[in-house]
């Protein structure tokens, strides 16, 4: 399809980031439409009536939602860069680890940031375990995808860029070079990749954003990714 795709998202969202990087890797023709999540656009509500969330990819008249599903769609619908491996087993493993990141790594880290007392201790223990497991997957490779970034790297984008910011705002120190040297090296390498760099906000801006929302997040535990 030669038509320009539209990506409804925000620069502050690691989920939107996944979709944006996928499109950039494919050198796809797309327009980034910045959503104000406090005042969701008619377009967002029309193309994602069920969840009303970003990212939303509009391609032709069709809309695709859920960040990892968008990435897989981009990989299948656009030519060029191979985001998922071609081998079925490697592809399945990539999907498994992307799920692990969404279901285990991210929630444990997020809750470690925004809880306190005994609850926080529990979450921190979980977060440490999941980070160790995730780091283990790098096993001597430059990226989760091998020599170049792939599906799991995109899924872990939040770890690479957002985790450091969140822990700074929350006042904890989970992901550090001493405890996770391989993961931190990967994070730096990931963030240096051109299409990734192009999609990331200035770090200071993101720190300021989360700092300003800190109390709200602490109270609701809900992310605020504008």
């Amino acid at each position, binding site marked *: 399809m030669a038509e320009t795709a539209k990506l409804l998202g925000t620069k502050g969202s690691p989920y939107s980031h996944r979709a944006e990087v996928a499109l950039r890797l494919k050198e796809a023709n797309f327009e980034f439409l910045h959503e104000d999540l406090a005042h969701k656009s008619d377009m967002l509500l029309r193309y994602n009536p069920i969840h009303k969330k970003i990212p939303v990819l509009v391609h032709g008249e069709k809309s*695709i939602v859920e960040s990892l599903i968008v990435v897989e769609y981009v990989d299948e*619908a656009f030519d060029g860069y191979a985001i998922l491996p071609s081998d*079925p*087993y490697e592809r*399945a493993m990539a*999907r*498994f680890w992307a*799920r*692990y990141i969404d279901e285990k790594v991210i929630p444990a880290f997020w809750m470690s940031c925004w809880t306190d007392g005994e609850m926080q201790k529990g979450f921190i223990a979980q977060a440490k375990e999941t980070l160790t497991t995730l780091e283990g997957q790098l096993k001597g490779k430059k990226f989760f995808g091998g020599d170049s970034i792939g599906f799991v790297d995109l899924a872990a984008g939040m770890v690479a860029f957002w985790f450091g910011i969140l822990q700074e705002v929350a006042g904890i120190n989970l992901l550090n070079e001493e405890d996770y040297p391989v993961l931190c090296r990967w994070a730096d390498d990931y963030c240096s990749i051109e299409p990734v760099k192009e999609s990331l906000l200035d770090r200071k801006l993101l720190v300021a954003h989360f700092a300003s929302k800190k109390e709200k997040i602490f109270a609701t535990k809900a992310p605020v990714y504008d």
Partner: protein
Amino acid sequence: MAEKEVKLFGNWASTYTLRVEWALKLKGIEYEYVNEDIPFNKSEELLRLNPVTKKIPVLVHNGKPLAESLVIIEYIDDTWTKGYSIMPKDPYDRAQARFWAKFADDKCMSAMYSVSTSSGEAQQKMLQEAREAFQILEQALGSKKFFGGDQIGYLDLAITLLAFWIPILEEIVSVSMVDNENAPLLKEWFTRILDVDMIKTSLPPRDKMYELSKQRREQFFSGQI
């Protein structure tokens, strides 16, 4: 060649295991089945094969293990490319199938669970949410015979466990989650899918599942689980 090297670790009561079994059956793949005594008596082999989540189902093909039922189904479809087509071919249709499977797992399953583990006013609220979720899920079916169209596909395999569980839980809890008012087409599909030969002959006995569900619910309310 590949066929003898397929082993599936599962559990008789696990509808997630069944998802994988149905995918294997649709492709005509022969496999060895190992029943795991979950949750307290998992085999060493299972824990070695899936040290990350330690859960079933786990598929082992040529010595390589895979976990997560929906991931396994896509793997089966990607690997045994001749024969029955489980996933749609078109990228958009595939994205839709994955979206609805996620919706069914994230919203419908958890709604179903919430209804059966709550009571009083909280349960009424959960029930309303569940009914809405199923009404939305029906959109994926529309007027088609199956979610996959004329033949069953990925989404049918993913969602059949709802067709099996909902009626059982409705009876135990005395509520109506899917009926002619909120999701008539989905309700019809429940009957249709459970009548498909491959599915009918492989589901665990309803009375056994009924008793197991009742037991688990009682354990939940008494704080045991």
